[in-house]
């Protein structure tokens, strides 16, 4: 069915909504990558079988959705219309859910989420603090949509913005609206999106291209992935509107090959959008035509950098190019090109639908709208969270994140991916927006947020991130390739107890100059972990260097394990788990650790139930 005019879209939406009675029971199973990993596919399949077997089809719908964000608690099942939220659901629970909850309306207590702060069980999805404190403008529909069916997206006002733009706005008006909204690039640099579009629109050269950057490469980050998997049409709609505003006929989505589900859902979405006349020739019956191709990336982190990404699409080595010229002037195949991140594109239809004025009221003075973070590390509620710009780190960590597990002390949070900086606990009231994060020595990046507790060694953290950027630097320019390698070497020495006090000065000098003189964003930001840990955690560096001591007890060369005789009851569990047979002793007597044999793996510490292993 091809939609030829806005009224066709309205009619189609009406028809779809009639088919989906909101009062009808609907079981939604989250099949985002996180939940799939914990077994959601089998749960969904079991629901399908059991619903069919019991002949419940006419009364009960089953919907497989994208990521809801609360990956920590997966597989997630939400039952509409009451929005009953069941977590960590297993195949064995399915029959009971059907017979108790769906047929009798009874709640199964053991599957409910327990608020760790109050200890209370929560029934409704909306009441869970993790969701309640968020503002899920972009991400909210993920849980309500079957991403493989365009009808769900259309039912939720999908493609309304596109119809509005094509029939009631000219390209300049679209650009003005985006400019007024204050939307800034969600890929990290935060360049004003409307200004970028306008620069590209003003170019005389043709054809023009637009690109969606879905080469999400930060360790632990999966918000772009979840959006593409869970709501691909929201990204496509943004791209089509952008193409209309800029004057492009062709677009690319550069997505990692490591995201097979995202690619599959994108392929389905592209096909369906075309079939419905929302993509391809004469979109919605207008003269405007636009097509999108998927380009799969081969797993180089640096290809997320825009100029390297375009080189990669052209079939060249993914190496950044110096700017100017900027992509808007000379990008893909030396033609004017506009490139935006997945999340940026997903914001577009929202702005068009609700208006720039409404949008610009969310967030802070300089950073508008919401941002999706992947909240990971030493945090109770791991997952994807969408919050208004300007929210404090405290709210992120304690209210949404539910605090630090096992009662440990919060130490730092690292934002912005491997090139971001570590923000210490004392800055916990820092509002999260582009400027404030940069001032603190970190950055927004594409939304990574790694929480660290007292057991994290900050020198080791810096070393970890540097090892990542060392391997992922393209190696083209001297400061990035050689400089990161040297910083890593120095950090490695420090963690092995071979550091000198003069190393800190050299490390700082290296970090500053690499940041100042590298060719692209990778090298210009890679020293951030070093600079921020030097600034905020200097005492930890000094402990490693002067006292040959790792205060967090992480750096293997600086720690030793021993048995606390008073606590040891001689259960010999440590003895059994020790992989090098370094632990000896008689049963029911305190054990001994042979330091020569000990490889400091920490297995004994984990196994001991009597706190009888000491780390020094």
């Amino acid at each position: 069915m091809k939609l030829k005019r806005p009224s066709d879209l309205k009619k189609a939406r009406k028809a779809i909504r009639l088919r989906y009675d909101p009062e009808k029971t609907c079981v939604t199973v989250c099949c985002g990558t996180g939940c799939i990993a914990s077994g959601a596919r089998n749960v969904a399949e079991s629901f399908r079988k059991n619903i069919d077997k019991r002949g419940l089809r006419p009364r009960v719908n089953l919907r497989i959705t994208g990521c809801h964000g609360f990956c920590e608690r997966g597989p997630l099942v939400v039952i509409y219309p009451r929005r009953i939220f069941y977590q960590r659901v297993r195949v064995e629970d399915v029959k009971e859910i059907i017979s108790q909850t769906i047929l009798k309306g009874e709640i199964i207590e053991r599957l409910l989420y327990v608020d760790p702060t109050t200890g209370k069980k929560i029934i409704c999805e909306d009441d869970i603090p993790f969701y309640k404190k968020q503002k899920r403008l972009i991400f909210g529909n993920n849980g309500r949509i079957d991403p493989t069916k365009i009808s769900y997206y259309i039912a939720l006002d999908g493609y309304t913005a596109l119809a509005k733009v094509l029939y009631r706005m000219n390209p300049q008006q679209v650009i003005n609206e985006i400019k007024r909204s204050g939307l800034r690039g969600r890929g990290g640099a935060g360049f004003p999106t409307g200004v970028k579009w306008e620069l590209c629109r003003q170019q005389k050269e043709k054809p023009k291209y637009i690109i969606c950057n879905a080469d999400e490469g930060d360790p632990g980050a999966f918000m772009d992935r979840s959006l593409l998997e869970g709501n691909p049409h929201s990204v496509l709609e943004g791209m089509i509107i952008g193409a209309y505003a800029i004057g492009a006929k062709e677009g690319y989505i550069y997505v990692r090959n490591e995201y097979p589900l995202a690619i599959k859902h994108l392929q389905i979405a592209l096909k369906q959008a075309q079939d419905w006349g929302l993509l391809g020739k004469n979109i919605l019956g207008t003269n405007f035509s636009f097509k999108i191709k998927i380009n799969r990336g081969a797993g180089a982190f640096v290809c997320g950098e825009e100029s390297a990404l375009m080189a990669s699409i052209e079939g060249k080595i993914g190496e950044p190019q110096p700017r100017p010229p900027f992509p808007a002037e000379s990008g893909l195949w030396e033609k004017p090109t506009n490139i935006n991140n997945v999340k940026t594109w997903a914001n577009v239809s929202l702005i068009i639908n609700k208006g720039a004025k409404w949008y610009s009221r969310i967030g802070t003075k300089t950073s508008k709208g919401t941002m999706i973070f992947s909240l990971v590390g030493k945090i109770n509620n791991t997952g994807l969270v969408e919050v208004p710009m300007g929210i404090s780190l405290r709210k992120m960590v304690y209210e949404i994140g539910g605090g630090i597990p096992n009662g440990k002390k919060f130490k730092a949070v690292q934002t912005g991916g491997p090139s971001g900086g570590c923000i210490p606990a004392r800055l916990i009231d820092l509002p999260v927006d582009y400027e404030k994060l940069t001032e603190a020595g970190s950055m927004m990046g594409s939304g990574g947020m790694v929480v660290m507790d007292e057991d994290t060694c900050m020198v080791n953290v810096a070393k970890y991130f540097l090892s990542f950027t060392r391997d992922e630097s393209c190696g083209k320019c001297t400061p990035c390739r050689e400089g990161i390698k040297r910083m890593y070497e120095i950090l490695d020495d420090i963690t092995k107890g071979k550091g000198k006090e003069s190393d800190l000065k050299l490390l700082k000098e290296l970090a500053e100059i690499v940041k100042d003189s590298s060719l692209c964003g990778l090298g210009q930001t890679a020293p951030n972990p070093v600079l921020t840990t030097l600034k905020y955690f200097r005492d930890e560096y000094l402990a490693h260097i002067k006292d040959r001591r790792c205060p967090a007890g992480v750096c293997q060369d600086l720690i030793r394990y021993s048995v606390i005789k008073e606590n040891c009851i001689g259960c010999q569990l440590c003895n059994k788990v020790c992989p090098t047979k370094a632990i000896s002793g008689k049963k029911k007597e305190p054990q001994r650790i042979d330091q020569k044999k000990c490889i400091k793996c920490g297995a004994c510490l984990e196994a001991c139930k009597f706190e009888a292993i000491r780390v020094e």
Partner: protein
Amino acid sequence: MIKLTIDDKKIQVEEGTTLLEVAQKLGIEIPTLCHHQALKPYGACRVCLVEVIKGSRVGLVASCTYPAEEGLVARTDTKRVKRARRLSIELLLARCPTSEKVRELALELEVKKTRFKEEEEECILCGLCVRVCEEMIGKSAISFVNRGADREVTTPFKIESSECIGCGACAYLCPTGVIKIEDVIKYRRLDFWNTKLELKKCKICGRYFIPLVELEYLKDKIKSFEEIELPEEALEVCPRCRRKILSDKAKEFIGG
């Protein structure tokens, strides 16, 4: 024409001129390593950095790639510039401590020794060889492989190249001299590229003088220039003999 200022010297240049070219016009010396006037600017070595002031923004840019802009003010001698150039050369000195070219430039920039652990590399990864092979010769027989600290230049799969014609342009441009080419009797050995090519024997003196594949490549190239008509035997003799034939002909002509 574009007006700009470098080190307080004002100048007008054509659009598309790089800051490095502008500086050269003004007689301001800027060191370079990965730059060659015959090749496209690359911006990798970072020893040609200069400071650019645009409104309130001050930043370091590679002068070899940065185009002249109207009203731009650049400085080549600030502390920030010197500090950045010195670190880049110090890093290269640690990578290639035996390279003459790097040592020379390090001395020039007052870097006496490196504070980093010395390695035994000889290639500074300037990419001149890769670029000349692609841009001027049109073969792309060699390329960068791997990323980050593991980056190197080599042939595909590090095996004998089926594309290399043994022209030697890479060795000619290599600033460190690590690419060595040697003719051993009837073969040209390019050990750095794991490649050995058979040479053509001169019809007159019997000396081996050009790789067979290079000769074929040249013949093909020449075909595309219609205005050049070369006698068939012209490429069958070595340059020395060719000169001799020519000078003999000239002598005959002059009547000497």
